[in-house]
């Protein structure tokens, strides 16, 4: 029984971390149709922002939940204004440009911080479930994911800003005719996507550590999740994370981590074969 509870927590954690690392990409790729190959590096920058802020004495919670998203969000807006805005509608070109950007960011962080970065340990200690122990930080990551998803839902569904963003992405010319300034909406949306990536990178930093090339470990999984999820940002991310996270954790627990990764990829391939538009291409079509 203890083991079942422990396992349930870990499955939830896997879902939460997949959802967190993919949601920024889901906004940038799902809404804006920009293939952002520098997504992993946005996560990495979030981790560095949190570590640097903490080392300057900022409380770890503030550096993770405030400093990291703000810093990476600003970087995102700069990137959008200087690179991405010239490339809307040219998917291959954005891929190349963001790939170059990702190499540049890896090189830059290596030059500034070196390769071995002193990380931060996970706060909150551990707690006992029967005969087993697990980290309290796991629960915190799950909570952050829930809050972020709920926050996105509220903003997109309930606020004027969300309405404008959705409208502009669907038909920029029409939105412009109604008095919206599409370039500004694009920049803000890209910035918010980047900020969410920064938040995810910071929240996962105490667990996974931070080094300049860590983006590679994230980027493939986030793309698999977003493509598996399909067009709808929220329901797509949540449903694909749930599916892949569960399969990955249970397969890892039952067999080996190698097989766990294989199971995740195999599930993704089958899913894309059966549902080329992703999960939300067929189900939850009216979802966000």
């Amino acid at each position, binding site marked *: 029984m203890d083991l079942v509870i422990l396992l349930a927590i870990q499955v939830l954690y896997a879902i939460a971390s997949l959802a967190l690392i993919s949601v920024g990409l889901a906004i940038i790729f799902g809404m804006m149709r920009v293939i952002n190959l520098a997504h992993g590096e946005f996560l990495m920058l979030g981790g560095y922002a949190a570590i640097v802020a903490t080392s300057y004495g900022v409380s770890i919670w503030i550096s993770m939940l405030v400093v990291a998203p703000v810093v990476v969000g600003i970087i995102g807006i700069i990137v959008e204004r200087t690179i991405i805005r010239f490339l809307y509608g040219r998917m291959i070109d954005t891929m190349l440009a963001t790939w170059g950007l990702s190499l540049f960011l890896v090189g830059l962080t290596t030059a500034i911080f070196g390769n071995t970065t002193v990380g931060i340990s996970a706060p909150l200690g551990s707690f006992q479930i029967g005969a087993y*122990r697990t980290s309290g930080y796991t629960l915190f990551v799950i909570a952050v994911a829930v809050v972020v998803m709920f926050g996105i839902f509220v903003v997109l569904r309930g606020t004027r800003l969300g309405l404008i963003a959705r409208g502009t992405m669907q038909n920029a010319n029409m939105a412009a005719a109604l008095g919206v300034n599409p370039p500004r909406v694009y920049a803000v949306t890209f910035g918010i996507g980047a900020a969410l990536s920064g938040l995810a990178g910071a929240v996962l930093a105490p667990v996974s550590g931070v080094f300049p090339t*860590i983006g590679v470990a994230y980027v493939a999984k986030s793309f698999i999740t977003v493509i598996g999820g399909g067009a709808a940002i929220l329901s797509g991310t949540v449903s694909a994370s749930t599916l892949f996270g569960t399969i990955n954790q249970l397969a890892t*627990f039952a067999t080996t981590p190698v097989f766990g990764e294989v199971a995740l990829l195999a599930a993704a391939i089958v899913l894309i074969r059966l549902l080329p538009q992703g999960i939300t291409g067929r189900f939850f079509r009216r979802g966000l």
Partner: protein
Amino acid sequence: MKVDRRRFLQGTAAAAAAGAFSSPAWAADDPIGVASVHDLSGGLDIYGKPMVDALTLAVEEANAAGGLLGRQIKLINYDTQSNMQLYTQFAQQAALKDKVAVVHGGITSASREVIRPVLDRFKTLYFYNTQYEGGVCDRNQFDTGVTPAQTVEKLVPYAMKKWGKKVYVIAADYNYGQITSQWVKKYVTENGGEVPSIDFFPLDVTNFGPTISKIQAAKPDFVWSALVGGAHISFYRQWAAAGMRKSIPMASTTFAVGNEHIVLSPDECNGMLICYNYFQDLKNPVNAAFVTAFQKRFGADYPNITELAMGTYQGFRLWAEAVKKAGSVDRLKVIEALETGISIDAPSGKVTIDPPTHHCVLDVHIAEVNDKKLKVLEDFAQQKPADTAAVCDLIKNPTDNQQYVIKI
């Protein structure tokens, strides 16, 4: 500067005389080329940078002492960027274009197996200076790193005596992890213990939650880690965050090679046992002088001189010793000189080439991670590479050329 006519004439005459004298002896004055082929960028640079630093120091020391055979040594540095293609390319360049006397390089077993055949084909002497899983048998290659028979064999009984007989093994899923974990299993079984499970991890895995529960369910006396690289550091973080560091101890022959003990906080890795040939804290006069020279060259705040850096330093010193003995940099003459069983007094203690295997006989030490320092607990003098010796005899079969996977 004002040059008058007389001085001008003197100068030209001297230059002409020097030119006349030096041209017949031109080849002898040429510097001796030594190539370094290491990853200085990309995922493996945490290992490569200290190795190249140590090699740089060794070359500078040799040059300051007058070079070898009266010639200066020129270090040609190639950065392979953690990319196997570049290994092939740079090994060829070092052999064919630079015509170096020796190549020091390769970090992972994969990179070694990429350049080994290239250097064999172009008859260029090769030194592989990393601790590895053992078994390479090639007359053109010398290995100065420790093998499992030298470290795992010592650390397993030590840890079992301290903590108990049930050992859970976790390892990186490639050559080194696969073979080393088999050695761990062999020595645990031989010492009357058991290994309930060996789990392998791809090098980019960062979530260890399910494994940590599995380990708890298996209730081992200690965990043996052969995890490798940046992503795997997160295992130690998650292990400590789950409160496991204090209840189940850990031993490793990969930890701290990339200075993991400095990256992690003391709370995440204190008490872990490790076993290597070299620790910066070794107490002997040669090491004291070496550490002073190293810190003078690369800064007093240099984090920690690693095992791999020392292997590279010792590799160069052994080669230089052999060149002196052979009186030549000719490949075969140097190999023959090395095969006489050359030894040096290195900072890690006495290091001797073992002629039949081309590996080294050297001291190993068990140490404990203690507040970002590595505290030496016990020394084992002059360990032989028994694993490789079981399969490889280059004196009897000089043409042998392969990596044996030792059946366990």
